[in-house]
């Protein structure tokens, strides 16, 4: 605006070349917005891809997808009941949560309430390394070490080569850093005054941790657990390698199980031509997975908003 008046005052001498550049500024902003729009486009295309191929799938399979109890898309007489895959997914994720919630929250309380700054500086980056380990490595470890050495030799469990237990256990350690780091952030954000008040009334460190800090940070803690669960549900390689590919309606963790993600990968590997029901089943499973994780993510965000205590 100022540039415009200057140009009017001294015609011909474009101060700082303002006119030309202002046009360029607009173009640049538009280009940047376009780049930012790519991420929105990604979401749109994910939904379009999943829905487009799922529609013919559901037209053919119908409600049997939700009610059937057998998943065998590549047989001559295919069955498309998603229940065994959902059971497998929830079973493996459930085992993972049983490991990750106590270990993750214990680590978070220790780091936030007990550890010296020096310990924290050393331990946190090491936990970050766990985040960086590719999941195929965890899968290999579950198959070649957890199952034969820990479960069979050490604990004498009657597990099969592929089983939900080893996949779930190791998936737990994959999730631990997610739960630990988000919960620790939430606990560290609890104002010092609350702790001091409790100490002043004679509370011990344990009582302060469990009865003051923990409840005050509960929204972040729940969010971390929900995000951890959603990571577990979406994890593919661990279950594909260690849990086997046998859809099962049973709940015995020493047996092989198949998950939604595992079957998507296995079906895709089979190289089904586009248009076949096998190809479409990848998309129907993908849609199921997408909706599941989206709901979990929304619960986490909602929880944080609703129960977050705002401290001055």
């Amino acid at each position, binding site marked *: 605006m100022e540039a415009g008046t200057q140009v009017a005052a001294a015609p011909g001498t474009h101060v700082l070349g303002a006119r030309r550049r202002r046009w360029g500024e607009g173009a640049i902003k538009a280009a940047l917005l376009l780049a930012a729009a790519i991420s929105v486009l990604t979401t749109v295309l994910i939904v379009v891809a999943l829905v487009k191929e799922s529609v013919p799938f559901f037209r053919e399979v119908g409600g049997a997808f939700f009610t059937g109890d057998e998943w065998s898309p590549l047989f001559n007489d295919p069955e498309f009941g998603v229940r065994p895959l959902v059971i497998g997914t929830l079973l493996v994720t459930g085992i993972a949560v049983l490991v990750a919630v106590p270990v993750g929250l214990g680590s978070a309380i220790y780091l936030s309430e007990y550890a010296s700054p020096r310990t924290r500086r050393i331990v946190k980056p090491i936990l970050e390394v766990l985040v960086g380990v590719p999941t195929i490595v965890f899968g290999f470890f579950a198959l070649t070490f957890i199952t034969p050495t820990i479960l069979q030799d050490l604990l004498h469990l009657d597990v099969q080569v592929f089983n939900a237990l080893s996949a779930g256990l190791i998936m737990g350690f994959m999730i631990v850093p997610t739960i630990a780091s988000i919960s620790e952030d939430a606990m560290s954000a609890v104002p010092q005054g609350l702790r001091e008040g409790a100490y002043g009334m004679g509370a011990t460190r344990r009582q302060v941790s469990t009865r003051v800090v923990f409840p005050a940070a509960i929204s972040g803690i729940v969010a971390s657990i929900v995000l951890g669960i959603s990571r577990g549900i979406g994890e*593919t390689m661990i279950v594909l390698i260690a849990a086997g590919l046998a859809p099962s309606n049973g709940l015995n963790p020493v047996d092989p199980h198949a998950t939604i993600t595992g079957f998507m990968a296995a079906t895709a590997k089979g190289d089904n031509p586009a248009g076949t029901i096998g190809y479409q089943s990848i998309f129907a499973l993908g849609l199921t997975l997408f909706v599941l994780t989206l709901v979990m*993510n929304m619960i986490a965000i909602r929880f944080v908003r609703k129960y977050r205590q705002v401290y001055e």
Partner: protein
Amino acid sequence: MSSAAEAAAAGAVRTSFKSGRSTRIWELAFKGCLASCILVSLLVLVVLLEQIVNDGIGSLSLGFLTDTPSRIDPASSGIGPALTGTLWLMLVCTVFIIPVGVATAVYLEEYADSDRWFNRVIEVNIQNLAAVPSIVYGVLGLAFLVRGPLSMGHVLLAGGLTLGLLVLPVLIVAGREAIRAVPPSIREGSMALGATRWQTVWKQVLPASLPGIATGAILSLSRAIGETAPLIVIGAAAFATSSPTGIFDDVTALPIQIFSWISDPQPEFKSLAAAGIIVLMVILLAMNAVAIWLRNRYERKW
């Protein structure tokens, strides 16, 4: 416990003493439990690394890095094509995510008015994208890049773009943090000297936030090259016999080769898988080390 009289005599004193000691014991036990939570995670990490080095070190040699995989002879098998494929994927990924990721971060931090609905949509959307399972990105790549509208087939270009879309949110978040760390006074100074907004961003904000952005880019790339599931879905070649020479060759990558060895029932191939994992982990650790070094060396404190 020996006699009721004794207990009654020392009753009052003992209860208070006992409760004092038991409180202290509980405190210690609680702290011990918490510390063991951390120790068990560290133990798993150590055992994991130790096992993989143990299994794989025997198969590791210079030839292993360059040889092609063989189904018959594990001894002469290598990761040559897979490693080349991973390098190509990194190249495609870098060329794609750096301009798009940095532009998005600049837009959201420097230009976007967060009261406008579409800017809020972009922000929420990036949060949600970060939580989408990686295999779903594979489905996206399969539907739009490999088949469907673009129909490029399962080539490295499609694989690199798929991985790029997957890690884009990571880079955007890191880029935004780096840009936000540049103090407003730098921008104000630049603009007071007559620079336009873009000149300020290009000449002041971006150079100042470069170390943070570079760190974010390296971490995104290291996440991308460890991914297996999306590449399986878009149809990566489980068994590449020759090294890819361009982005229009078939997708093959280190994790895919490792996975195909893990799936092989012959035990000799397990050690090849472990050796492949060692190479992958060394690459990842090196990238992380560079990222940390960059951050410590060049990050400015304002």
